[in-house]
C-alpha cells in the first residue's frame, strides 16, 4: 500500500510540476485577502483588548489557513476529471490497494498547500509581519497546515464521489471554506465575537487550526494552543480520510 501510494503520489507531483502556473493560481486569492484585509482592518489593533501588536500579526495565521482551504477543497474536482478521463479506472483495474488511490491524492493536495502556505509566509514576512522562522515551531505549524490539508482534501474527494458532478461540488467547497473561516478567529479575535459565533467557533476545527498556527509561527511561542490545535486537526483529518476511503470503496457497488 505504501509503495502504491508513493507511485501515484509521484505521478500527481509530476503533473503539478508541469503545470506550475495552475498551482500558483491558488495563491492569488489569499494574497489579495492578505493585502486588502490587512489594510481594511488595520485600525482594529488599536481597540482595547486586541491581542496582538498589529492587525497583520494577528491576521497572517488566518490567511495561511485560508490558503489551505482554498487549495485543498478542489481536490475532488480533479478526481471527477480523472474519473471522466478513465485514469481512475486504469488504477482500479490494477491489483493495488484501493486506499492508496485516495491517500495519494490527499497527500499530494496537502503537500501542495503546505508549499503554498510557505510562500504566503515569506510574502507576509516581506511586508513586515512578525514571523518566527525558528525551525521547530515552523515545522509544528506546517504540520498543522498539512493535517488540515489532508482533512479538507479528503472531504472534497468524498463529496466528489457522493455528488458525482462538479457544480454541486463547487457549491459544497465554497460552503466549507468561507463560512467556516468567518466562524473562527482567523479575522476577528474571540473577545470581539458575539456569543453565538464564539460558540460555533469553539466547535469549528478550523478555529483550532488557526490558533495552533498562531501559537507557533507568529509572535511569542504558545505550546498550549499548538498542541490543542494539533490534536483537533489530527482527529479531523483521520475522520475525514476514513470517510473518504469508505466513500471511494463504495465505487464498486
Amino acid at each position, binding site marked *: 500500500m505504501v509503495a502504491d501510494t508513493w507511485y501515484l503520489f509521484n505521478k500527481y507531483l509530476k503533473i503539478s510540476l508541469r503545470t506550475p502556473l495552475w498551482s500558483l493560481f491558488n495563491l492569488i486569492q489569499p494574497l489579495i485577502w492578505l493585502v486588502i484585509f490587512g489594510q481594511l482592518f488595520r485600525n482594529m489593533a488599536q481597540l482595547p483588548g486586541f491581542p496582538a501588536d498589529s492587525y497583520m500579526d494577528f491576521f497572517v495565521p488566518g490567511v495561511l489557513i485560508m490558503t489551505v482551504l482554498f487549495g485543498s477543497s478542489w481536490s475532488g474536482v480533479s478526481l471527477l*476529471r480523472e474519473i*471522466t478521463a478513465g485514469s481512475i479506472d*486504469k488504477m482500479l483495474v490494477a491489483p493495488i490497494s484501493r486506499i492508496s488511490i485516495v491517500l495519494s491524492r490527499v497527500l499530494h493536495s496537502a503537500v501542495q498547500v503546505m508549499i503554498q502556505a510557505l510562500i504566503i509566509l515569506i510574502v507576509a514576512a516581506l511586508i513586515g509581519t512578525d514571523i518566527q522562522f525558528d525551525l521547530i515551531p515552523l515545522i509544528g505549524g506546517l504540520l498543522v497546515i498539512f493535517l488540515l490539508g489532508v482533512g479538507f482534501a479528503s472531504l472534497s474527494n468524498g463529496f466528489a464521489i457522493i455528488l458525482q458532478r462538479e457544480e454541486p461540488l463547487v457549491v459544497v467547497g465554497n460552503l466549507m471554506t468561507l463560512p467556516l473561516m468567518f466562524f473562527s478567529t482567523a479575522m476577528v479575535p474571540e473577545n470581539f465575537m458575539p456569543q453565538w459565533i464564539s460558540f460555533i467557533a469553539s466547535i469549528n476545527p478550523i478555529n483550532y487550526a488557526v490558533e495552533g498556527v498562531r501559537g507557533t509561527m507568529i509572535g511569542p511561542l504558545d505550546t498550549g494552543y499548538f498542541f490543542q490545535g494539533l490534536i483537533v486537526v489530527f482527529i479531523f483529518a483521520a475522520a475525514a480520510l476514513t470517510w473518504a476511503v469508505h466513500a471511494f470503496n463504495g465505487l464498486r457497488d
Partner: protein
Amino acid sequence: MRRVIRASENRTNIMIQVEKLLKIFPSGHKAVNELSLQVEQGEILALLGPNGAGKTTTIRVLSTLAGFDDGKVHVAGHDIDRAPDKVRESIGLVAQQTGVDFLLTGRENLSLQGQLYHMPKAEIQQRIDELADYFELTDALDQQVMTYSGGMRRKLDIATALIHKPKVIFLDEPTLGLDIKSRKSLWRYIEKLNIELGLTILLTTHYLEEADNLSHRVAIINNGSICAVDTPEALKNGIGGDALTLTFSQKDSATQRFSEALEQQGHAQRLLWEGNRLHLYVDHGASSVPKIAALAAEENVDIAELSLARPSLDDVFLQFTGTSMEDTGEEEGEEWWHQWAGKGGGGKWQKKWQNQDWQDSESGETDESSKGEWQDKQQAWSSQDASTTASNQATEQSTESTKENTHWEQDNWDKNQSSDWQKWQQKGENESPGGDTLEQKNKTHDWQKWQDKNKQD
C-alpha cells in the same frame, strides 16, 4: 434462438466463463440480463451490439470494475468475486476513455502502470522498450501524451494494458473515433497480439466490419443478453441465400398487399419490414429480382430503390433483434454516466432519494404512476441529449444500404469523421468541464429533478 456453445468440461482452456450474469442498475434497468458466455484461450470474441446493449457493463463486470447482482464469472480460472486481485493480475483493460495521463510522457505512463503491477524496475524498462518497438512508439516515447495523435494514444493505451503480460485483454470499442487508416492499422496490431502471443481477446464494438474482420467468433448482444454466438461466416450462412432490400417512398396498404403477395407466392424465405424498407431473404437473388419487379408492377407498387447483396452481420442482427444496428443508436458516453451513477456513493444516494423522498411521501397508486412519469422524463432527457448527435448521424444513416463493400468504406469513413467530431466534443467537455454542453446537460438534469421533486410535494 440461443445457439449452444461447445459445452466443454475441460476448464483449463476456457479463459472467460460467464454464467447467467445479472446486473441491475439502481434505476431498475437490467443492464445485463442472464448473460452467458465462454471464451476459449487464444480466441478473439467480439461482442457486437448497439450502444446501450450492455457491452460496456459486461466488460466492466468482467474486469472487476463493477459489481453484479447474480451469476458466476470466472476469468483466467479465478472467481471474480472471491479473488478479484488474481483476476486483475491476469487481465488488461483498454476502456473507452483513454486512461493515459496527457501531461505525462509515454514512458512515464507505461512505467507507472508497471509499478502498479509491482513489476521489478529492470523488467519494466525491458517491457517498455519491447512495447514501444511493437507499437512503433519509440520516437514519441519521451514526449508528453498531449502531443500524440488519436491513434497513437490508443496504441499507448493498449501498450499500458499489456505491460504486465496479461493472459486476457478486454478492448472496449478499441477503434471508436479513429480514422479508417488508424483503425485498420490497429486491427493488424490486435491480430498480431493474438497470433504471436496467443492472447485471449474480448472486444466490444458496434462496427459490423470490425466484428466481421477481426474476431474468430461474434456474440450478438441486445438488451443485456446474447442472442447468438458463432463465427461471422456461420452467422451469415445461417440466413442463407441473398439479402434483397426494397425501399419504398412510404409504407402503405399497397406495399402491404405487395409484401403479402410476395409471401404467398413463395418468392422469399423470410420477409422483414423495417420502416419503409422491406428486407427479403431469397435463395437466388439474380433470378428473384425480375419476378419481384414483375409482381411490383402488377400490384402497382413503386420501388424507390432495390439492392441485392450477400447477407451481412447487419442482416444477422436484424434477424435476431428485429431492428437494424444502424437504427439502434444512442448517445455515446450516455452509457458511461449510467455506469458511474449505478455505483457507489452516488448510486446509493440516488436510491435513497428515490425511495424516501418520494415513495414515502406518496401513497400507493399515484406513486407508481408518478414514478413512471419520472422515468419517462428521464428518458426524454437522455434522448434530448442524444438528439443533437443523432441529427448529425441522421444524414449518414441514409436509406443507402451498406452491404456493398464500396459503400461500406464510404459510410464508415463518414461515420468516423462524425465520431471523431463527437470524440472531440466529448474531449472538450472533459477538459473544460465548465464548458457549455456539459454545464447545460447538468443544468437540465438538475432542473428536471427539481421540477419532478416539486411535483411530488
